[in-house]
């Protein structure tokens, strides 16, 4: 959390329409809905706005409709109703002009096992009508290098480990300079080291100005890299906005550590703190409206021996629980 809020200082009073207008948005959907042929309502009336330049976390438990949304954004499936615009153009109608500027990793990598990693990339690049065949080899080499596969580029893809396949999939998304990267659970199946590398790569790409749309079912992953987030549950959008604002939406808790817990609880209530909970030497409450320095002074004045006095920031998980009233579990 600390990391995300440090890179994302709150700027109150900023032009309110900036970045929220549909024409500035890299992705904008309205009432986007998908019911699969089996009758499963996978995405239900989604209104999503992804501002340019953001690292946008698309968060939701398994089966909440993240991949389905991404398939609609990439023109792979037709929405049942509603519309989607990517880079300001309607999808899937404008696929041919939009998709060359979008790199995508959808539901894990898919490779030709009998081809080498390098030949896989050459093939995907040949499928892009805007890719220059004269620079193809260099671009493929650069993409392999970028994901750390330069040495393994000649190996058959079927001999790759899951992590290597994931990297090769990422390399395919990086064959050209992109304005938008759509990464569907890019750290699935990776070890912690691989996850860290992906996060570093995402930050690098974002600092080059690429908008990154990152879906994940892992809260801490989103908290670590994203500037913005949207939360999905059972096909519906629960909330979206800047990560710092989302977490701020769920209020943090005041934590007082003291051997005089009972007295501390009394003083806190007196000071206007709600939901005071005593747990051994730990007294927690919702922070009162007044200046916390006053609250601390009142505790000391009442001869409460204060060992610790902390305002614990809310995490995205707290925000999620506050919003849904439930934990972050797979919907049954």
């Amino acid at each position, binding site marked *: 959390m600390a990391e995300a809020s440090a890179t*994302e200082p709150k*700027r*109150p009073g*900023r032009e*309110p329409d*900036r970045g929220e*207008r549909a*024409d*500035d948005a890299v992705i904008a959907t*309205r009432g986007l809905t998908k019911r699969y042929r089996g009758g499963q309502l996978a995405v239900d*009336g989604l209104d999503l706005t992804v501002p*340019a*330049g*953001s*690292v946008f976390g698309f968060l939701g438990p398994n089966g909440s409709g993240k991949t389905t949304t991404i*398939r609609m954004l*990439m*023109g*792979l*499936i*037709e929405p049942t109703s509603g*519309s989607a*615009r990517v880079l300001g*153009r*309607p999808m899937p109608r*404008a*696929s*041919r*002009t939009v*998709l060359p500027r979008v790199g*995508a990793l*959808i*539901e894990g990598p*898919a*490779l030709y096992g*009998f*081809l080498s990693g390098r030949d896989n990339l050459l*093939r995907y690049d*040949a*499928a*892009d*009508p*805007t*890719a*220059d*065949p004269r620079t193809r080899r260099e671009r493929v080499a650069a993409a392999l290098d970028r994901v750390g596969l330069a040495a393994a580029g000649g190996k058959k893809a079927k001999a790759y480990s899951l992590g290597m396949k994931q990297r090769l999939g990422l390399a*395919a998304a990086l064959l050209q300079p992109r*304005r938008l990267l759509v990464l569907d659970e890019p750290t699935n199946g990776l070890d912690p080291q691989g996850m860290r590398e992906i996060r570093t790569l995402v930050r690098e790409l*974002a600092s080059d*100005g690429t908008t990154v749309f990152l879906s994940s079912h892992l809260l801490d992953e989103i908290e670590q890299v994203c*500037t913005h987030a949207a939360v999905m549950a059972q096909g519906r*959008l*629960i*909330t*979206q*906005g*800047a990560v710092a*604002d*989302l977490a701020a*939406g769920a209020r943090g808790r005041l934590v007082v550590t003291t051997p005089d817990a009972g007295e501390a609880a009394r003083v806190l209530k007196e000071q206007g703190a709600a939901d005071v909970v005593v747990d051994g030497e730990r007294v927690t409450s919702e922070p009162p409206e007044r200046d916390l320095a006053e609250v601390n002074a009142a505790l000391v004045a009442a001869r409460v021996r204060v060992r610790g006095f902390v305002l614990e920031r809310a995490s995205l998980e707290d925000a999620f629980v506050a919003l849904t009233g439930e934990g972050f579990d797979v919907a049954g």
Partner: protein
Amino acid sequence: MSRADAQDDRAGESALTAPDPGVVMDPGVVAGPGVVAGPSVVAGQGAVRSPSPLWSLGLFRSELLTTFRRWRTLALLAVLAAVPILVGIAVKIETGDGSSLGGGGGGAGGPAFISQISNNGLFLVFTALAATLPFFLPMAIGVVAGDAIAGESSAGTLRYLLVAPAGRSRLLLTKYATVITFCLAATLVVAVSALAVGALLFPVGDLITISGTRITYAEGLGRALLIALVVAASLVGIAALGLFVSTLTGSGIAAMATTVGLLITVQILDQIPQLDALQPYFFSHYWLSFADVMREPVYWDDLVKNLGLQALYAAVFGSAAWARFTTKDITA
């Protein structure tokens, strides 16, 4: 970026610039998310190379390389190359004592040619094509065509080709062109193998046509090439049928099995006398008309009927495949 796309944009604009009433979220969250980069970033990377008119050739080349590097393709071609070798050796053993092969005359084309192999090796080309056309050749085509879309779909590579974006119509056309190329390659493999084996094991020289006239070896070679082209063209219908089946399913194996199953069924139905009203519409009905190329003068009636029927199959199943593939949800 085409004019049509610019119009697309304007059409969808009014709906999307309106403020969003439907978003389910805390209004405090919506206001002032810190957008990291403004619209300048979007403008900065806007330039995209316009597609080269030769790009489709690049995709075709990639498709050919991919198809002909599959071990399955190579195995099919190896089996086809082995057929003339086996036939040649069998005939050589049968006629090792200097006598010519007995029987002959029965059936359409095949056996008439086989009795002449020991006199002239070139007849092995006609015999081998007649022997492989009813089953081996179309089965190979059925496997390659059935796998064309469904195989990519089950491997997941289809979605990456489509987001590259290859374009659905172009991808389908490229796939069909590749299958047709495979028809030609498969036929030529049989013909060239037969030509080589025939020249190695048997005498070569002037030859007698079915009509009893004598033509030179050079003219015989010309006729052999023409026959190979006619045989390759005879496979265009099942290639289109296989491609259509391939767009119906997400399983490469199922598509291959269905196509080969259809082939066998049609071959059997073509033998049932009660169905003679339908038989002229079976794609295999005029296949053995290629023997008419060996008449003097060439008897064109059935050859033309065959080519017309193949064109009809290509048009009907090509359109069906296109209608299916361009509207299909790609979820694999």
